[in-house]
């Protein structure tokens, strides 16, 4: 029964107080792929239980917000929409922004809202934020179908929409950038909030502020080149402008900004993994 008889390879799990910070155990997450799928299903179906309109709300929300934005920002305040029909402009902005901000808000709650489950059962904690991002993607997919209808209407009705077909292949890249960026930010916030709840308040402001810095309600062309460059450090801003450019031919599209967005997102992602790994093991003691 001596320890020496059993080498370390024979053990399936070895737990020590400290382990590598950068270790992202994706194989373990993959083993729980069924759980991710069920979580995604739960996220999507449970929200619309006991509603009459059900998933239709997914379309009603962006329609209403687009109408409100069109009245306030375009008709009343007279802000430019870069030559894009206002309704299309705001619907594009709204569709992608809501994807980002929903993912961010939900992943930032990972530890707190799942504390009761995490405290009782072990499974890779990353399952939760991953499933949030995936259900966000599903929702985005459905909302894009609404966007497609409006888009095709303007495409055939007016000549203000000039799609850049060659770049359409890049669209998924921007969706990935936005997803990973929200995942990283969300994970960082969720890690901090387990001990100090101050960050939940901060996140509320941050999301509102970020919306105005991400060209959702007004275009980048309103700014001087210098200010534009500063604002484009935000990967959401550069992705948003690039999406608009690809879809309508109006907007700022620069390879330089896109590379910057990818690098920023990657750096933030690695940073968030380190923080997450540090937090996930003992957050139950402080949450």
């Amino acid at each position, binding site marked *: *029964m001596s*320890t020496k008889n*059993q080498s*370390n390879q*024979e*053990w*399936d*799990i*070895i*737990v*020590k*107080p400290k382990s590598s910070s950068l270790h992202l155990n994706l194989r373990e997450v993959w083993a*729980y792929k*069924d*759980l991710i*799928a*069920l*979580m995604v*299903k*739960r996220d999507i*179906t*449970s929200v619309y*239980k*006991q509603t009459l309109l059900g998933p239709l709300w997914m379309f009603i929300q962006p329609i209403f917000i687009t109408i409100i934005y069109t009245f306030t920002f375009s008709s009343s305040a007279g802000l430019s929409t870069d030559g894009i029909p206002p309704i299309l402009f705001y619907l594009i902005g709204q569709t992608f922004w809501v994807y980002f901000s929903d993912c961010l808000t939900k992943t930032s709650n990972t530890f707190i809202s799942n504390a*009761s*489950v*995490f*405290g*009782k*059962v*072990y*499974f890779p904690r990353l399952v939760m934020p991953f499933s949030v991002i995936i259900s966000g993607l599903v929702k985005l997919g459905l909302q894009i179908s609404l966007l497609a209808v409006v888009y095709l209407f303007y495409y055939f009705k007016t000549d203000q929409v000039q799609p850049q077909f060659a770049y359409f292949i890049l669209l998924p890249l921007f969706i990935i950038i936005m997803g990973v960026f929200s995942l990283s930010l969300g994970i960082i916030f969720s890690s901090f909030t387990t*001990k*100090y709840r101050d960050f939940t308040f901060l996140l509320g402001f941050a999301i509102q502020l970020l919306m105005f810095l991400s060209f959702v309600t007004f275009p980048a062309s309103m700014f001087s080149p210098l200010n534009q460059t500063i604002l484009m450090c935000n990967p959401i801003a550069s992705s948003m402008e690039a999406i608009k450019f690809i879809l309508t031919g109006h907007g700022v599209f620069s390879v330089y900004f896109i590379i910057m967005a990818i690098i920023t997102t990657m750096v933030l992602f690695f940073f968030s993994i380190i923080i997450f790994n540090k937090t996930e*093991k*003992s957050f*139950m*003691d*402080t949450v």
Partner: protein
Amino acid sequence: MSQKVIQVTDLGKQYRLGQVGTTTISDDLKRFWYKIKGKDDPFLKIGEENDRTKKGSSDYVWALKDISFDVNQGDVLGIVGKNGAGKSTLLKILSRTTAPTLGEYKIKGRVASLLEVGTGFHPDLTGRENVFLNGAILGMTKAEIKDSFDEILDFSGVEKYIDTPVKRYSSGMYVRLAFAVAAHLKPEILIVDEVLSVGDQEFQEKCLGKMRSVSESGRTVLFVSHNLLAVKQLCTKGIYLKNGKLLKTGTTRDIVEEYLNDDKQLKSDGTIPDDFYREFGTGEAFFRKIVLTDMNDNSLTRFAFNQPFKLKLYLEALKQIKDVTININITTSLGEPIIFSVDSKDSKYLSHTFEEGMHEVDVMFNFKLLPNNYRVTIGVHYFKDGITIDWLENIYQFKIDKVSYNTNEDYPWDTIHGYIEPESIWSYKRI
């Protein structure tokens, strides 16, 4: 020799007391600063033993310290200890919901932890959807759940409601469904907390039965419970935790005895120390002394077979307590109650009123105990609603010898079946 499946080495877990606030951030910064300088965490050196009855001077406390033990495949390990001894912390660490502060452990095989039933149940989802979700949370794949879905449904007995949201379920149905999922897990190592033993009798039986069948199939079970009988029935080995330290490992019987023996420190004349820790009670009255005596009022802890004895109690009432009843349990050395006695006359239970001050209560019994070790539990409760005023579990121990009081009536056999010998009349007839 069976294979080692869990190996725990020098495990420790430190907690910080009090609320999260400005002191925590200064401690965090200090810890960070030591880390930059390459030194050890300064707070690991401090921290007190986990004794919740005394207010400590340090903000840090060791919920567990220096825990080392091994578990072999097929063992059913019972973990006993009082509230706050660190049992649940140990289970939490072993089920990986929190990390240890010091030490390490190794596990071989798939682990499922049942620290609660129905983890992750979503009220708005139907029973069917929750079975899949809960199963996946507990580590089953979708295919495995599908395979055992019919069995789960059968076991739970809520077939009719399976497509109704679980928020419409009665709590009983909820628990049954949740447990049905858990019961169909097929892990190599099962970790079970005593929370499972909350439900009704039938449910508890089901839980215990399930655990028995799990262990019989050669899998390993870790089980925490205050129900010593369940521990004794189920477990093959035990560990005894006290104030975060591992006091003893061994066979279940040894552990349970040790647990019951420990901490009942009466003075030699049967006086209960003033600072004796009470788990509950209103504090309106306290037992001050308990002794068993022979007929000449000599206090004894060892009696001869057939020797009559009396129980003498001193109860101090801090104010007048009306309509109360004292009850006495005599239990086996493992804590199973075998005798329950309260004041009664003509089959009618009686209550009593104690004026403020010290009272002596003498109780004479008319029964014969067979040779063995016994314990006494005493309590004083309000007659009507049963509210406990003072209660001392397994406070007094005594032994009945085989050697008789009257020299020619020794207990003649080696084995002893049972505890009480009733007065009985036998008659024989050839037919």
